[in-house]
């Protein structure tokens, strides 16, 4: 502490020698199985939506970001993640707009990589959800030919989508909340249910997450604490109120896996100290259960993470007496 040497790189710098671009491109790689599953279930629509969201992010970074900042790959990750949280049938212009918002107001306005408060992809998703609630809650059914579009992807910019010709379904959480019907666990695990592009295939998400955790590119405490909190809390509630779903259903339905593994662990917007990570994960878990069971919306992972993102500066204050220069102790 006597003579601190500052290396002025962007914020994810506590994890050792790996450079930011290298970490970021590994994350992109770990998303491959999830993207594969999305294309498997949702056909060409998945490719278009993910591409549109990524294009929105990359173009915004290119136009407004500092020179050369595209190389670190963070804009691509934001775009891929945003795309994976969207329903397959969404008009592409909306996905593109979400990408612009995510990078523009979610990241660049704070000064670029490592300085933002909210997870950009989720902020973009929350913006789209608030702006186009109907398009964002129209879930295509997983049946039908693979190559068919899952909705009016090619609606003209600023225009509404035509009513979908294919049958629309509901997410397992929606079915649970509004109809009281359960979805089989096996379906939830392999992902053949309604939902956002990347959230359905739990196995693939865990695969990508395990890779990142092994390479120490994500803090395993965060997903584990989220899973534990959600499982324990919902199981306790299930015992007292049997009509509420149990732990397994809560874990494998909705965006919990995707959010816990890829969004909540975003190094920039999660706490730096281990203790902080536990508090943060626990908070997300509690909020998810509360919003899912007693809120007006069927799913709350996105809001839970955003809300806890806003608490991260506070958690960091509480768990780290000094904001700077403690990186090495925290990582050890």
């Amino acid at each position, binding site marked *: *502490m006597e003579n*601190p040497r*500052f290396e*002025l790189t962007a914020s994810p710098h506590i994890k050792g020698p790996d450079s930011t671009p290298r970490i970021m491109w590994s994350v992109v790689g770990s998303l491959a199985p999830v993207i594969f599953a999305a294309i498997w279930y949702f056909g060409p629509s998945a490719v278009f939506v993910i591409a549109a969201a990524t294009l929105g992010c990359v173009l915004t970074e290119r136009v407004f970001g500092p020179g050369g900042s595209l190389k670190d790959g963070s804009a691509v990750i934001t775009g891929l993640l945003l795309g994976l949280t969207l329903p397959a049938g969404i*008009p592409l212009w*909306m996905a593109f707009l979400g990408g612009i918002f995510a990078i523009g*107001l979610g990241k660049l*306005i704070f000064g670029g990589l490592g300085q933002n408060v909210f997870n950009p992809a989720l902020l973009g998703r929350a*913006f789209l959800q*608030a*702006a*186009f*609630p109907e*398009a964002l809650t129209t879930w295509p059914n997983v049946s039908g030919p693979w190559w068919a579009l899952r909705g009016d992807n090619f*609606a*003209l910019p*600023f*225009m*509404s*989508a035509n009513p979908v010709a294919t049958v629309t379904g509901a997410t397992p959480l929606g079915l649970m909340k509004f109809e009281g019907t359960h979805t089989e666990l096996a379906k939830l695990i392999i992902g053949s249910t309604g939902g956002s592009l990347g959230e359905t295939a739990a196995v693939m998400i865990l695969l990508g997450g395990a890779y990142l955790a092994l390479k120490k590119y994500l803090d395993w405490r965060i997903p584990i604490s989220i899973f534990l909190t959600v499982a324990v809390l919902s199981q306790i509630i299930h015992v007292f109120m049997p009509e509420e779903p149990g732990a397994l259903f809560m874990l494998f339905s909705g965006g919990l896996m995707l959010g816990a593994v890829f969004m909540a662990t975003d190094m920039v917007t999660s706490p730096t100290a281990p203790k902080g990570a536990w508090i943060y994960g626990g908070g997300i878990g509690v909020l998810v259960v509360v919003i899912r069971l007693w809120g007006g919306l069927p799913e709350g992972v996105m809001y839970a993470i955003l809300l806890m993102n806003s608490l991260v500066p506070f958690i960091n*204050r509480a768990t780290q*007496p*000094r*904001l*700077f*220069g403690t990186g090495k102790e925290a990582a050890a």
Partner: protein
Amino acid sequence: MSRRTTPQEDFIRGIWKENPVLVQLLGLCPTLAVTGTVDNALTMGIATFFVLLGSSVLVATFKSVIPKEVRISAYILVIATFVTIADNVLHAVVPEIHKSLGPFVPLIVVNCIILGRQEAFASKNTVGRATLDAIGTGFGFIITMMIMGSMRELLGNGTWLGYPLFGAHFEPWVIMVLPPGGFFTLGFILLGIAWWKGRTAVPVRPRRWPHGVTTEVGGSTS
């Protein structure tokens, strides 16, 4: 008052250079709360204009009679009277808009713009100048409300004053008429103004984090 201003300056100042909302950041509560539609924003702007003008004229007329010690109480009394009048008139004349404005009409009382103009200008100047100043500031407020209301209604509903402008297939951006949309719209306008001003003048400030930053910055917050 270091320098006498011309009547034109009294009038024009409130519209742009000292725009109450965009430059002084006063009266944000109504600017964000009731600008979801143009007619709400316009009604609110006119009501505030009326209260501001009435109070300024009255305060400037009686400035020598009002003792300094109770001036704030007297101003608030005057403002509250005008607001009550405006509230009742709106309720009787445009009941639908009054309903959708809800408690935000009475809340004009605590709009800092009005009390601010009384304290800073009307109580120190002639009736004529106070009138010009109130009209200018009031117009500045109405214009800001209209900009906010237009942006939010156009994008959020595809209409302007209720007339559809973008055709039947326009997909409205619902967020614009929700509370976050209010914050984002005003934020965007302020970013735009800062960009415009930065383009014409002031060189970019140096980064806050030059290389020799000391550790005290981290320590001072705890």
